[in-house]
């Protein structure tokens, strides 16, 4: 499971960075989104991967550490998701607006030979 998650994070981050380096604003935004997915998974994995462990205290389980997962990274990842989502929405609006004002979706606002 660890290997699978690591590969997933790596692929997402790699694809995200590759897209971010492109010159079209839509590609850049997609790249940032993929990168933030990778980061979110990474935060999640920093609480150690556990199966069948609850993050919130439950009367039905014995109060030992083996029964519970670390709840803090889950709270952190929630915050990161919310902030990342809002930022992506804002960037989309700015990109749309810039597309209207400059007539191109090139990130520098200049239509050139860059793809």
């Amino acid at each position, binding site marked *: 499971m660890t290997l699978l998650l690591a590969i997933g994070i790596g692929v997402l981050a790699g694809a995200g960075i590759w897209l*971010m380096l492109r010159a079209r604003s839509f590609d850049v935004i997609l790249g940032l989104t993929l*990168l933030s997915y990778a980061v979110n998974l990474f935060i999640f994995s*920093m609480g150690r991967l556990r199966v069948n462990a609850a993050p919130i205290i439950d009367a039905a389980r014995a109060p030992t550490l083996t029964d519970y997962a670390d709840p803090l990274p889950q709270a*952190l990842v929630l915050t990161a998701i919310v902030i*990342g989502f809002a*930022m992506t929405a804002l*960037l989309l609006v700015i990109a749309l607006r*810039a597309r209207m004002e*400059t007539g191109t979706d090139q990130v520098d606002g200049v239509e050139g030979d860059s793809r």
Partner: protein
Amino acid sequence: MSWPHWTVLPVVAPLMAGAVVMLLERRGAAIARAVAVATAIALVVLAAALAWQASDGTVRAYLLGNWAAPFGISLALDRLAGLMLLLAAIVGLASLLYAGAGDASRGAHFHSLVLFQLAGLNGAFLTADLFNLFVFFEVLLIASYGLLLHGGGAARLRASIHYVSFNLTGSALFLIAVSLLYGLTGTLNMADLAGRVAQLPADDAVLLRVAATLLLVVFCVKAALLPLYFWLPETYSAASAPAAAVFAIMTKVGVYAIARVSTLVFGADAGVGASVAQPWLPALALATLALGAAGAFAARRLRQMLAYLIVASAGTLLLAIGLGTPGTVGAGLFYLINSTLVAAAMFLLIDRIALGRGVLGDALEPAPHGARRAMLGPAFFLLAVAMAGVPPLAGFLGKALLLDAARETSLAVWVWAVVLGAGLATIVTLARAGTIVFWRGGEEDARHAASTAFADYGGGPRLAGSGARAAHPGPALAIVLLGALIVACALFAGPIAAYTGDAAGQLFARRPYIDAVLGAAPAAPAIDVRKEMREQGRLKGAAR
């Protein structure tokens, strides 16, 4: 001051006031402005009181939501935090005063955005929790995106795309660094981290150093260190003047965060994570300083010149912190006060100058003199003296303190050569700019300039309504306020330098901060909700 909640007020007050101002805007601009300015004045008073309170040397910790220290989020007020709060409040007030003359009505919600920005800044200065620092960074960044876009126009949109994507990438790195640190140590409280990082086994050294370096890279993005400064000149010269004035304190957040984290968590006695920044921070800072001076020298517009001078001052500050002795950090903090005030004042003044020059704006070309050269010229001279670091103003004192403190470090020769060389370049740059703007510009020069003029001004139509704006007292008030404070910095240099020296000493002492944060006891609750719920059997897991 027995009320315990003073410490959290610099965060809560502007947030609430910002929301209220947003509602009041519909009732008319005047009342919204009045509330915003009143809040800013109250913040200045509050921050001054907190800085005064912190000057006795104790660190005051505040537990948000009354959760015990490493588990909840703590705020901590020490000398450095008090100083930064005061600076942020002053710059915010100046910006709001200035914007009252018309810049605020150029787009929506200007006052609220400045107040939200202040809330984010104050939170970042006060927090003692690494993830909370990330959240407050985001708060201040969100407000800054709005402020940068304030006024609209293609140039600002273009700058925004770069600025927002760059900072989003920075945030992603920040999250990776923070979660790595959490994975290694199991805590995010900076005081707790300080203890646990020192005890990490050598096996984790590589991961820890990766996390520390990533964290410093993120802070250097904010502080505009050499390879990461590209966003700054574009952003600062595209933003409207009052927004740019607020941004003057934003690079200082990065400097503050580096100062805090590199002394508290990754200080000299941090075990395997000790002094991560040492080898490369001073070298990069020197290069930043040199490049900033060169960029200012080559700039063809006043705002661009100023943006590069800010890069240079960020280089000086990071140099002071990178050298890593209490003496250099104290000198750096003294320099920080002066450079923040000067940068903010200069942005406002350049906007005034540009307004009087018609289509040329802030381009470094001779233009016919406006009627108010007699007022703007001396003001520019004063700020230029403060910025270049020439006696008698505080810019000189800051650099002199830094050079003196740097003598005992191994990089002394380089520091002296680059700081003095960059200082000379800055003097030449500012003298040339002042000469072109204020002395040349008779009939003959003006006709020549008009034929070569270029006017791709990012700010859209500026001339309309400039007559009405000239009558408003706000801009003059804002510039005079900042100018008076700059002069006061020089007059009261002794006490201020003593304060910044003590602040640096407190940073390096570490123990008082750690003890205050971890030792803060939650207040006894007036009503114990959990107990009541337990008694009624409504709490999950209460059976055990």
